[in-house]
């Protein structure tokens, strides 16, 4: 057993942290809030470092690495609340396309590695169904401004074998933006027509790819939530050291200490669940097994709860100043709230875990 990141993985993480400390500051995030459509240099910098193409095959200009290698970088993306779609492009679309080699897929993948292409991926769950929102249609994160769309067709009633998976260029879709509390989410509904030219997989292949996608999305999102939780706690701890009331720093009061300590403990225990899940999804013997699927759900449920607790506590520690637009905290709170519900909430994943465990205690059922 070697449950730790390698020195190389850790060094890559440190390098990405350095870049994001400079190129993804709270002021940068505020300018994205004001003008979400403006493209920054940041994504190109990440492409040059190999981050955007981390999961793209080497022959197509990428690093040919895996979700496990990406997880520490996703944590950094979360710490910085990186507005660009690293999850959608590098954790989801690239590995999916790499699994179905074709000339168009190769071109998309090269574009991802060079930083020219970003992707949007329609949320699906493991049953292959596209969850309709309360607004009656599926809302896709990072849709507004994406170059490539990964879109499943809804299965015809009762027959998952009819699912199809398409990779569609922005030229052939109509995006209607959907407003989010976090404007960097760039949500949209997507109008499109399936065609043979965009089809990448159908039937059992498509279903298996969608399940894989849902699991990877849960873990990748969980990794960003770890980073967000870490950032919110450190902002609040720093504030608790400098803000004085009753003649001393508020961080010296037990009521404040215990809020932050509780959030920190949740975060500490969420971390290994995410690392363990990323390992299990990439392990040949385990991938797709109930154990691997449960580990992905464990990671997402734990990280969602850790981040929402960090958000609650960090706001409370700040008091009224934390409730203002001027304080940077809300830039991270809003992303955390959105991602906690994205690709399955903690409650969704708890339910999945329990039904999977019950299935295992009833092995006789066929």
């Amino acid at each position: 057993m070697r449950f730790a990141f390698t020195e190389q993985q850790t060094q890559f993480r440190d390098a990405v942290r350095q870049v994001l400390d400079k190129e993804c500051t709270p002021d940068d995030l505020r300018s994205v809030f004001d003008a979400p459509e403006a493209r920054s240099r940041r994504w190109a910098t990440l492409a040059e470092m190999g981050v955007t193409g981390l999961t793209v095959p080497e022959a197509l200009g990428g690093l040919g690495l895996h979700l496990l290698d990406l997880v520490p970088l996703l944590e950094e993306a979360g710490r910085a609340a990186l507005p660009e779609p690293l999850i959608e492009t590098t954790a989801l679309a690239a590995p999916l396309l790499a699994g179905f080699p074709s000339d168009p897929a190769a071109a998309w993948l090269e574009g991802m590695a060079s930083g020219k292409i970003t992707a949007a991926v329609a949320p699906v769950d493991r049953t292959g169904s596209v969850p309709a929102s309360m607004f009656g249609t599926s809302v896709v994160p990072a849709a507004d401004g994406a170059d490539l769309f990964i879109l499943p067709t809804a299965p015809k009633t009762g027959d998952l074998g009819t699912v199809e998976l398409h990779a569609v260029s922005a030229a052939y879709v109509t995006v209607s933006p959907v407003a989010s509390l976090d404007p960097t989410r760039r949500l949209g509904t997507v109008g499109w027509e399936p065609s043979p030219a965009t089809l990448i997989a159908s039937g059992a292949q498509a279903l298996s790819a969608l399940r894989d996608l849902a699991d990877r999305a849960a873990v990748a999102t969980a990794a960003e939530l770890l980073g967000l939780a870490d950032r919110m706690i450190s902002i609040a701890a720093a504030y608790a050291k400098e803000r004085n009331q009753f003649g001393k720093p508020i961080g010296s009061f037990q009521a404040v200490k215990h809020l932050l300590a509780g959030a920190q403990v949740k975060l500490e225990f969420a971390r290994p669940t995410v690392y363990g899940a990323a390992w299990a999804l990439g392990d040949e013997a385990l991938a797709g097994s109930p154990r691997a699927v449960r580990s992905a759900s464990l990671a997402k449920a734990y990280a969602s709860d850790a981040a929402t607790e960090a958000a609650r506590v960090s706001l409370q520690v700040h008091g009224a100043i934390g409730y203002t637009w001027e304080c940077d905290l809300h830039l991270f709170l809003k992303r955390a709230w959105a991602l906690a519900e994205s690709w399955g909430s903690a409650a969704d994943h708890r339910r999945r875990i329990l039904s999977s465990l019950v299935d295992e205690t009833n092995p006789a059922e066929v």
Partner: protein
Amino acid sequence: MDLRFAPDQEAFRADARGWLAAHAPAPGSLPSLDTPDGFEAHRNWEQTMFADRWSVVSWPEEYGGRGVGILEWLIFEEEYWRIQAPVRVSQNGVFLLAPTMFEFGTDEQKARFLPPMASGEEIWCQGWSEPDAGSDLAGIRSRAERASGDDGWLLTGQKTWASRGAYAEWCFGLFRTDPQAERHRGLTYFLLATDSPGVTVRPIPQIDGEPGFAEIFFEGVFVPDSQVLGDVGQGWNVAMATAGSERGLSLRSPARYTEAVSRLISLYTETLERDPTRASQHADAVAQAWMDAEAYRLNTYWTACRVLAGGAVGPEASANKIHWSETDLAIYRAALGLLGPEAEFTGGGGAAGNPWLDGFLFALAGPIYAGTNEIQRNVVAERLLGLPRG
């Protein structure tokens, strides 16, 4: 990264599993270790394990162990809990005193105390808390004065909440050797026999009615110099090494919770058949308890690998203690919820007759002993997050 055990570790697991299957008493077949009969039955089980070198696998061979590493210890624990083998009556000595003795003890002390500790021949209790020194442990007032022969110390005062104190042969504890020194300074760590002249042990019935702990009175108890652990006046530092083990890796192995949640899932599945409404009311709590146990298992492997790579467990031990004690409670609360009105049934033999109820009562102590969880949250806030002391 690889979360799989190596082939030689799996071979070690197979050995442990085979031996335990052949020797361990059936689950629940021993009387409670807080009764005189149960205490002796549990001691005999320790002797059986010691005879085949399974009682302290991670200790060096010269003291009765197998000299295996921390991952093998975790594997042994997984097998131990998987077959629901008896609670370890020797755990205060083996898990709390021994790590300190390996770090601070003289060769003579190790040779004298470790083998009978490993065999269960000598059971240890902890003498730290006092009536006026609980969470504020540095407020210890029990004192030790130099004996007239200048070959040892005379101990006077009172200790309390000593787990296993009702039956233990030996006690390790902190006493003030320098009355001028304040708080953390001037304390010394002593090892003493509970049958020494001047020692009075008064068992205290716990919440389940059994004498699980005791208060201990000292009236001029002579303790020779050879039974001081570490340097005179350095007791606090020596004790904190033990506290680290208690909160950290060695006291509560994840296997204990992994085993309990697998029984919880079975209880949930049965409840789903009998009373689906009640089952659904507690579904979230059951899932969360399973998740908490699984997160603890993963965090333990993560920490163990960090330690094997040369890292240390510092204030993270406090985060660990908060998590395992709350996990333990969450498991048994969920189970009692599933049992509903039957949760209070004891089966006639006291709480021990209902394993879920018994486990719940045991778990209730977790957030209190080894430093309350409130004290641990202070440690996390001050030492992991750098907040100022109050």
